[in-house]
């Protein structure tokens, strides 16, 4: 009998530990979500189910402003980063490797390598100078900063899509006397679209979640949802912050699920 239960790939205790890890990974998040529905004011005692904290968060002007600001920045950042990432992906794939290509890769992936706090400080200094010189304090700085660090996230799925694309379709279009632009518009772009949507969604999620760079770049009264929450965490906590977190979590999970369905390989 001992022979039969002996699986080569089985290492004793590994499965138990893995399941424990999954539980530990999700339990804190579930707790946080559960307390957002707590009727009691306290963060310790369960006072029954209620949606009061969502109503409170909804009525809170600061939360409303921060939400709108977060969404506006994330939309612009996603569109800009996807546009430049699509062009860069077209420029760096499907042609013979050229000198300087490594440099382009390093530049595009640079935001993944440099610690956020370093970029945050650097942008605070640079944009601070620009703000003093021009006197302009708009959301543009945040959009620019977010668009930049979203580029690698938009680039990856687009590049993957391009590399897996069948070149014969474009050759066929060219053989049928389509101009390069018409081939791009009618053949390449439609085939590329799912990759671009996936890239834009990742960029959107990444922008929506950013704390550190936003915290340093923002001018007064430009809180996004995460920086607003960071500020709140210093004060007396109420389940209102759980309600805000839960809403943000829901957006992320919905977008990610869509992303995975979009990029799933068809077997």
């Amino acid at each position, binding site marked *: 009998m001992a022979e039969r239960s002996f699986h080569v790939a089985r290492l004793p205790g590994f499965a138990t530990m893995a399941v424990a890890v999954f539980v530990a990974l999700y339990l804190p998040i579930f707790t*946080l979500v559960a307390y957002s529905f707590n009727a009691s004011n306290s963060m310790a005692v369960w006072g029954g189910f209620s949606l009061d904290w969502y109503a409170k968060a909804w009525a809170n002007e600061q939360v409303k402003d921060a939400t709108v600001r977060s969404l506006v920045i994330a939309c612009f950042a996603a569109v800009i980063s996807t546009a430049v990432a699509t*062009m860069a992906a077209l420029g760096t794939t499907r*042609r013979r490797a050229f000198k300087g290509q490594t440099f*382009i890769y390093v530049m595009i992936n640079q935001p993944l390598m440099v610690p956020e706090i370093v970029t945050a400080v650097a942008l605070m200094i640079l944009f601070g100078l620009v703000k003093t010189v021009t006197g302009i304090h708009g959301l543009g700085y945040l959009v620019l900063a977010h668009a930049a660090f979203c580029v690698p996230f938009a*680039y990856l799925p687009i590049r993957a899509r391009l590399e897996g694309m069948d070149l014969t379709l474009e050759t066929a279009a060219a053989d049928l006397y389509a101009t390069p632009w018409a081939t791009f518009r009618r053949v390449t772009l439609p085939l590329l679209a799912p990759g671009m949507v996936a890239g834009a969604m990742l960029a959107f999620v990444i922008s929506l*979640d950013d704390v550190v760079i936003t915290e340093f770049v923002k001018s007064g009264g430009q809180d996004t949802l995460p920086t607003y929450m960071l500020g709140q965490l210093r004060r007396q906590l109420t389940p209102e912050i759980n309600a805000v977190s839960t809403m943000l979590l829901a957006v992320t999970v919905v977008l990610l699920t869509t992303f995975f369905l979009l990029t799933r390989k068809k077997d």
Partner: protein
Amino acid sequence: MSRAEDAAVHRSVRNGWLLSTPALFLLTIAAAGPLLIVLVYSFLTPGQHGNVVWDFSVEGWIGILWSKDIFTGEWGLADAHLTIFWRSVSLSLLTTIFTFLLGFPTAWFIATRPPAQRALWLFLITIPFWTNLLIRTYAINEVLRKEGLINAVLLKLGVIDAPLDMLYGPFAIFVGMTYVYLPLMVLPLFAAIDRFDMKLLEAGYDLYASRMQVLRRVILPIVKPGIIAGSILVFVPSLGAYVTPRVLGGGKQMMIGNFIELQFLAGKNWPLGAALAMVLLIIVTVALLVYVRYANRDTSHG
């Protein structure tokens, strides 16, 4: 090569650069370029109320390890700074080790699931990875609090009589970082184990190796690239962590990231802050270069 082909290659390279230009421009003005300004600022003199005075000085760099006595004006080793560096490095190393100890069985478990289930388990690891870092850190705060989940359960079970004081300190930072960076360890480990040929295990067992021997002599050497990738992916953001120590360290137990912020806000010593940021950048770059070198050597030898 004919002249026409030559021209085609030339055009292709030019188009490659042209198409990459907008991305390169955006990243130069809002990501890579500003780093040069930090370098310049690290060699300037601090202004009275923050910011800088444009006079060359290396005191920002000296200030990393030494500090000037306010009364005597003499330079002495800055113990407080060393404590912060030591805390950052030791907590990052501990985090890396623990994410590996927890992540390896997890990655192994996922890689040995039937293919149909594997995508789901991977998805479950990826969701926390993409979820807001602040929210996850806050979730850990809720678990560790005096009235939090752990204390509530332990009190109920009668293991403890009074709630444990776990929040705000190195322990809480360590738990928080292990929690938030765990997916970064699991994903590259999974990629390495997924490529591992399970027949090698059979061979090992056929040659009378014990489970421990198979793990140490067969599995670990082969998945080593994944271990190194995971370790760097965890160590680098841990060393530069800002949110987690701020939310779970309680303000007094700083790490390098918070120390840099302090110089720009309350400390009013921008050159020191800039120099510290450069040091962090240099450490991270060295770690990445070592990794690239190792990864290249590894592939060239098979």
